[in-house]
């Protein structure tokens, strides 16, 4: 108990001190996860909206595949990106392995199916509500996609925040393609894993507290957005 208390005290001291190495790890985590979230939203929202609005042979198969990809194991994604970016791999000439860019690529692959699958469900419900109105107005598919993306904006922000939460807490893929290199690719989750194995629990607990705080902040934002949306009748 005394150990736990002292580790916690050490962690709080670490957080309050805000030393540059600690801040650097948090900053890189946020940069990688926010970039991955942005890229996955660009890809996933368009894909989700297309699947929500369109009707084509094999659509149901695509949806099943997308839903299955939501449970993609991070280490498998990490391995896939590693094989492609390693010197012998097809994209080895880019020299991206063990860089933040490789971590962003891995996280983007990991969370794009989440964004696409969740947004598809949200937008399909919306499109069902609007279907006859759109048909009556004679809207083409691009206009329908734009309309549901805009009208579903509050729900889609929630989807994006969920994707961010998933990416910032992810460790398996980024440790494989990033390598957990100090001052270069060390992020919160990989640092926690490393420091725990080294027995430096104060830093691990401090980073864990920050990670939890980020998760709480994300959830608070989601709740606040939902409240605003329902007050405006936009939910």
């Amino acid at each position, binding site marked *: 108990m005394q150990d736990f208390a002292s580790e916690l005290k050490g962690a709080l001291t670490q957080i309050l001190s805000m030393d540059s190495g600690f801040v650097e790890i948090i900053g890189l985590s946020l940069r990688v996860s926010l970039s991955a979230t942005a890229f996955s939203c660009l890809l996933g929202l368009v894909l989700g909206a297309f699947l929500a609005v369109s009707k084509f042979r094999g659509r149901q198969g695509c949806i099943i595949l997308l839903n299955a990809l939501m449970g993609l194991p991070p280490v498998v994604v990490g391995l896939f990106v590693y094989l492609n970016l390693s010197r012998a791999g097809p994209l080895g000439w880019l020299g991206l392995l063990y860089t933040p860019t490789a971590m962003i690529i891995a996280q983007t692959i990991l969370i794009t199916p989440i964004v696409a699958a969740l947004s598809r469900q949200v937008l399909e419900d919306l499109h069902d509500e609007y279907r006859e109105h759109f048909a*009556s107005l004679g809207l083409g598919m691009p206009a329908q996609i734009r309309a549901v993306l805009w009208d579903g904006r509050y729900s889609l922000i929630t989807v994006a925040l969920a994707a961010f939460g998933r990416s910032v807490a992810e460790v398996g893929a980024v440790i494989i393609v990033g390598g957990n290199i100090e001052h270069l690719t060390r992020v919160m989750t990989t640092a926690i894993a490393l420091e725990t194995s080294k027995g430096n629990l104060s830093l691990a607990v401090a980073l864990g507290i920050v990670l939890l705080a980020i998760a709480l902040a994300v959830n608070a934002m989601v709740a606040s957005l939902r409240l605003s949306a329902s007050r405006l009748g936009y939910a």
Partner: protein
Amino acid sequence: MLERTGAMTGTVQRHALYCRGLVYQVGERRLIDGIDLDFLPFGISTIVGYNGAGKSLLLRLLHGLLEPSEGAVLWNGKPLSAKARHHQAMVFQKPVILRRTVLDNLRFALASRGIRDRKQALAALERVGLSGLESRPARLLSGGEKQRLALGQAIGCNPDVLFLDEATASLDPASVHAIEQIVLAASAEGTKVIMVTHDVGQARRLSDEVIFIDQGRILEQAPAGSFFASPSTRHAAAYLEGRLPETHQHPSQN
């Protein structure tokens, strides 16, 4: 207040909408069963009939929202196309309101017809009595206001034919009156109105012609005056008297 008799004066026919051999079948059941229909070129044509008669289905077929199993809906002699649908507009029983402001809802509908002028959107809002509510979230409007917004979207598109599918169902009398006035004004300006209603009183107030439909077939089509004065079929007479015709009665009621 607009007078019913003035609705069709000085207008030019802008469309020719009709259907031939129209069938809509689900499984073995013909929900619309071989309908040939020409509408009065002007004014308001009202489709009436019992629940499940196929009124709303017929309206959706005429607007091209559903594909007929057999037969065709024709617009100026050609099969109804997506382009032809741009000359039509429809208001549904439950108005479809986007998650946007009142003005943005209206501008969205008008943009689908290539109308991007804000002033025209504001003018359409004024026509349906929603001026001053431009920036209000549309889904927070009352039921009557939502339906007027839907009507504003439809009329703002300046359609040749306006379809109304029980547009005043479940609205209070004041809202019904407001909507009826807007519909009469649109009709007076030359828009052909084809509406479905369960409200016989409303059909009497608005219609120039009445189409009575039962079990997917047209049993009677007549000028409103003669339909209400002396319906030519037993079914229509029973409908106007608020009775079920013999063929609709459950065996236990006999």
